[in-house]
């Protein structure tokens, strides 16, 4: 890792000042952790504000605009309010587990930021198994829900926790399967390497079906609309965090917003080219800006989607996953693997990292994806037509059965 800008120069300074080298390594590593972890913590304040503003504008109102210029300090005011609330623990709750759940909620999201490549030189930890690490940390998130639901000593919290875990575990399958596609195209599990491989062409153009599956599965994993059945106020009130108040609830909420942002960040890193942009090889710091801009676009799309699409029911949720997303993801993996072998046999695998070399592979994979999409839409159309015919048959049946003496008014 010669060209990685590392914090190890500080180690040399500390060792020369007489510190034990292992201790110096540990302290600088901790300093690096604090640096990387500060980014999501600062971002989440901004995220809450932008969510409220966008939701408000879609609903033709203004959103927070009193506290600070454009309402920017609203999140700070909310945080202050939350901290000063009374910190209660329900009677009969398991104290240690009850207090552990918000910590895991927050920690399991900040942990993902360790493997995200911000620029060609800056990455928290360049693991060779970056994508697998992301999936593993995402699956730890289910533990917090279980223990939060259980330790609240409240049967509605427990029911909410059951439903949430069913949703999360189900949508992990298309998440992992759709992540297999860029791993196959890039040939590596490491995040920095996957971003480097997108120098010629973004993986979104080579695998649009996988990108869309990944985005939908992420929306369901983070509990964002339209999959926010579990924490919507009109449903099971707050689901598994019904008994939490004050700062603990704040940590759950902040963890959820950060999870949504992290999911969009990962979509950008894996499918939309990460830190690539004009001039980033010469000035690596520009990578931050490109990554931030692309993530902001995807996150704004998710925010507008939240205010636009109606919520899905729990059985529609499960049907969508097991009958549609999982077969499409599996078919996508098979088709992509087959096409990649065909490309390798034809000798069209891009050797150099520029646009022209990546075009043949892109075109072949794009054609494969479009064909898969056409087949899927054909199925959707057929199912939709059958459903509509069944609905109309029921309606005609009830019309003919209506032998009442009084004719219906205004039929």
């Amino acid at each position: 890792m010669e060209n990685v800008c590392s914090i190890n120069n500080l180690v040399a300074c500390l060792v020369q000042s007489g510190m034990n080298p292992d201790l110096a390594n540990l302290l600088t590593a901790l300093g690096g952790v604090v640096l990387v972890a500060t980014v999501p913590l600062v971002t989440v304040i901004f995220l809450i504000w932008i969510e409220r503003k966008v939701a408000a504008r879609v609903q033709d109102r203004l959103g927070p605009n009193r506290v600070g210029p454009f309402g920017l300090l609203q999140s700070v005011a909310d945080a202050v309010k939350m901290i000063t609330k009374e910190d209660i623990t329900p009677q009969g709750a398991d104290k240690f587990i009850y207090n552990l759940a918000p910590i895991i909620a927050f920690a399991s999201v900040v942990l993902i930021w360790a493997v995200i490549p911000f620029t060609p030189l800056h990455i928290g930890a360049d693991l060779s198994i970056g994508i697998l690490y992301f999936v593993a940390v995402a699956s730890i998130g289910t533990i917090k829900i279980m223990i939060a639901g259980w330790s609240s000593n409240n049967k509605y919290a427990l029911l909410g926790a059951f439903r949430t875990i069913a949703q999360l575990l189900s949508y992990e399958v298309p998440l992992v399967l759709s992540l297999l596609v860029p791993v196959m195209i890039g040939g590596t599990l490491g995040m920095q390497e996957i971003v480097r491989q997108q120098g010629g062409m973004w993986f979104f153009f080579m695998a649009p079906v996988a990108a869309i599956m990944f985005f939908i599965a992420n929306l369901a994993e983070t509990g964002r609309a339209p999959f926010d059945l579990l924490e919507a106020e009109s449903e099971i009130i707050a689901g598994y965090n019904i008994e939490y108040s004050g700062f603990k609830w704040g940590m759950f909420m902040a963890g959820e917003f950060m999870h949504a942002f992290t999911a969009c960040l990962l979509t950008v890193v894996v499918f939309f080219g990460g830190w690539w942009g004009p001039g980033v090889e010469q000035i690596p710091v520009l990578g931050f800006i490109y990554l931030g801009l692309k993530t902001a676009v995807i996150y704004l799309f998710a925010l507008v989607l939240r205010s636009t699409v109606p919520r899905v029911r729990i059985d529609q949720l499960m049907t969508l996953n097991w009958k549609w997303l999982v077969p499409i993801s599996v078919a996508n993996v098979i088709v992509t693997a087959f096409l990649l072998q065909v490309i390798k046999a034809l000798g069209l695998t891009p050797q150099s990292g520029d646009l022209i070399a990546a075009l043949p592979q892109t075109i072949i994979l794009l054609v494969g994806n479009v064909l898969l999409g056409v087949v899927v839409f054909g199925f959707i159309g057929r199912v939709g037509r059958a459903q509509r015919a069944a609905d109309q048959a029921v309606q005609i049946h009830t019309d003919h059965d209506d032998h009442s003496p009084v004719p219906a008014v205004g039929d």
Partner: protein
Amino acid sequence: MLEFNAQSVAFIVFALFSLGGALGVVTTRNLIHATLYLILSLFGAAGFFVLLSAPFLAAVQILVYIGAIAILIVFAVMLTRSMTRLRELYNRQWLLSGVVGVALFLLLMIGVILPVWGINGSHVGKPVSDVVTTTVDLGIALVDQNQYVLPFEVASLLLTAAMIGAIVIARDDRE
């Protein structure tokens, strides 16, 4: 014995997690607590895999064991309503099992581990210091026709059979 560097500190921490979690599993009355102790023990094992230069296995341990099996166990504990205060913790043969456990441990340590790989043992060589194999080699080994492709395919069949079997057994046939 152990010099004081970062690796030995990590080893001791992970050993405490694994063994402490295991002791918690077998001694606690509250089954939910037992599941959490099990998760702690599995984290310790994942830490060992990282120390042993097998990062893929560490990630798979967290993903499969903690993310799936531990959640499954929590569901089973909740669905069988036997959770918080178990009436009796051990059955009638707990003393004999304790003796068997301690005897087995002493037999393994004194009879097998320490004579062969211990400090004055016969095979105490230096461990191979740098590992050149990567996750790619594991992937190749699992699909290479001269290596482990047959167990790989049989394992996938086993998982399918287990999935179907579990669904059939746990299905509620009463309605």
